[in-house]
């Protein structure tokens, strides 16, 4: 039976809610600039990758050393931009190619773990996912969210906006703010094209010049090879830097949507508490250590207000995920 979210539902906020900017504090400007801009025909500048890297770096750095670090990060960023430009020219991946790759990767992910085809649960996941994606939605793709039927705790984002969370991860969560944080982390990977960038970096060395220069829209074999590379990147894990950047972005996206900015932090704290459990084996192998993530998330979330009292929506989360065994 299709559920409807009626306007008559009771609000779940404190009546003394504040009306401040959802982003506040010392690091807000850099993160806000990074995560929230209006595009009037302008393309997403490559340099916009830098602010969050800078913010994340600064958040982990004693204040006295921040000036030097800032200079180094900017220098490194400029060099990285130039290198990325050369790599991209070797394997151009536009939006259509990205979506094609994403569909292939998503089909592989859904084959490896079975897709849970519960329409109500999937609708709920999409509503939460779209709520957090809206704060910095890419205009060229559609975000789609699905549940994977496995006890393993994990979340995966394929290029082009195909995002998955496992039943195991849902079972570990206690409220909607945690789910929002996890989905927002994945949205961060998609928005920054982490997998696409990694494919472009590795295409020539791992697939050869022919594939790297193939037109993916017309060369099915080359596209297959790139899908395979993209899938392997996902299953073997992105870089530590990409993961921490997604953590920062996820916290900000969730807060901008109105959720408790500590939702992702609370989830990662549970990962730490369950570190030795077998259902965390995959996640452990593909993500930075929880203690490192927690250190960053504590800082970012403490500087990122939600514009009102923290919205966690535990009751709505529990009723919407009632079919998930806990």
């Amino acid at each position: 039976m299709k559920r409807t979210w009626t306007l008559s539902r009771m609000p779940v906020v404190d009546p003394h809610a504040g009306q401040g900017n959802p982003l506040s504090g010392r690091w807000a400007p850099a993160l806000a600039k990074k995560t929230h801009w209006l595009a009037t025909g302008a393309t997403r500048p490559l340099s916009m990758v830098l602010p969050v890297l800078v913010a994340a770096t600064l958040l982990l750095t004693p204040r006295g050393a921040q000036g030097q670090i800032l200079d180094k990060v900017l220098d490194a960023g400029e060099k990285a931009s130039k290198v990325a430009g050369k790599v991209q020219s070797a394997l151009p991946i536009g939006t259509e190619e990205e979506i094609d790759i994403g569909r292939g990767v998503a089909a592989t992910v859904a084959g490896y773990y079975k897709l849970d085809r519960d329409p109500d649960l999937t609708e709920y996941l999409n509503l939460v996912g779209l709520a957090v994606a809206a704060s910095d939605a890419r205009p060229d793709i559609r975000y789609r969210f699905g549940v994977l039927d496995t006890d393993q705790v994990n979340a995966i984002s394929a290029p082009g906006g195909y995002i998955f969370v496992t039943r195991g991860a849902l079972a570990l969560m206690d409220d909607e703010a945690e789910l929002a944080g996890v989905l927002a982390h994945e949205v961060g990977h998609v928005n920054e094209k982490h997998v696409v960038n990694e494919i472009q970096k590795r295409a020539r060395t791992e697939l050869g010049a022919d594939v790297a220069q193939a037109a993916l829209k017309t060369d099915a074999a080359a596209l297959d090879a790139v899908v395979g590379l993209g899938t392997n990147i996902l299953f073997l894990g992105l870089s530590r830097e990409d993961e921490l950047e997604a953590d920062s972005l996820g916290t900000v996206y969730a807060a901008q949507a109105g959720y408790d900015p500590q939702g992702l932090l609370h989830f990662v704290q549970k990962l730490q508490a369950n570190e030795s459990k077998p259902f965390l084996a995959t996640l452990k192998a593909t993500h930075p250590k929880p203690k490192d993530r927690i250190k960053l998330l504590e800082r970012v979330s403490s500087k990122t207000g939600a514009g009102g009292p923290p919205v966690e929506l535990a009751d709505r989360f529990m009723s919407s995920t009632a079919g998930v065994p806990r």
Partner: protein
Amino acid sequence: MRSFFRPSTPFALLALLIAGAPQAAAQDLGATLAARQQALPKQKTAYLETFLNAPPGGASAEKDLKLAAKVAVAQEAPRERIEIQPVSGNTFGETVIVVGNGKDYFLVTKVGSTPLAKSAKAQDALVLQALGSAPNETAKKRALKTSDGKLAAVIYREPRPADFNSSTAFSLEAPKLGGGLLKKGLSSFADSDQPVVTASAGARGVDEIDTPDGKMPVTPDSSAVVWLEEREVSPLDLEAFLVAGRLGPYAGTEEAQ
């Protein structure tokens, strides 16, 4: 909660409109536009408004209002750009773009621009409501009342970073993909302007993957991807979801009565 019903100002156009007098409201278009010009901020400013409107005659509570439109505004006196995306059925309709260049306001369409006052949109209730929402308002939420004290509309306003390109934003030509400002916030569920997703050989996936435990065989499931793609969330369902959780534009606010 303060009311925005101030008949002495040109922005009273909105109150007239909601009170059911669109003709009278239309006659005040010139005054409203002139007042907008006066109120435009000199520095770059951008915001997104959500209109929840009451049925004719007003409503007793916010829960009886319905999402009517999303309005994105970019301003830098004397210029501004207003994009109105009205609700049409169970989704959003075509975006109406109005650009003011400091001398006049224009309706911008895919085929060109025309003075707003000479276009049929000058009589459009939502266009008038958008124009009647004062540029210099700072409240995150405003409740508009009818003359007999009922709720006529609630307008939520979210500031947006004003890092838009002025030459593009205030152009009298439609952006190539349409939408412009609104695309950032609404693209996830917009029906138009999306690239055509074409299934290809790659969409079937691969049959072996590398994992931390070594190579693993896989049977790709393309039908799962198709199933996911068929699970579209309607913009109105999403809006109701946000309202119910007091998220998005409604974060940090309480329901108006």
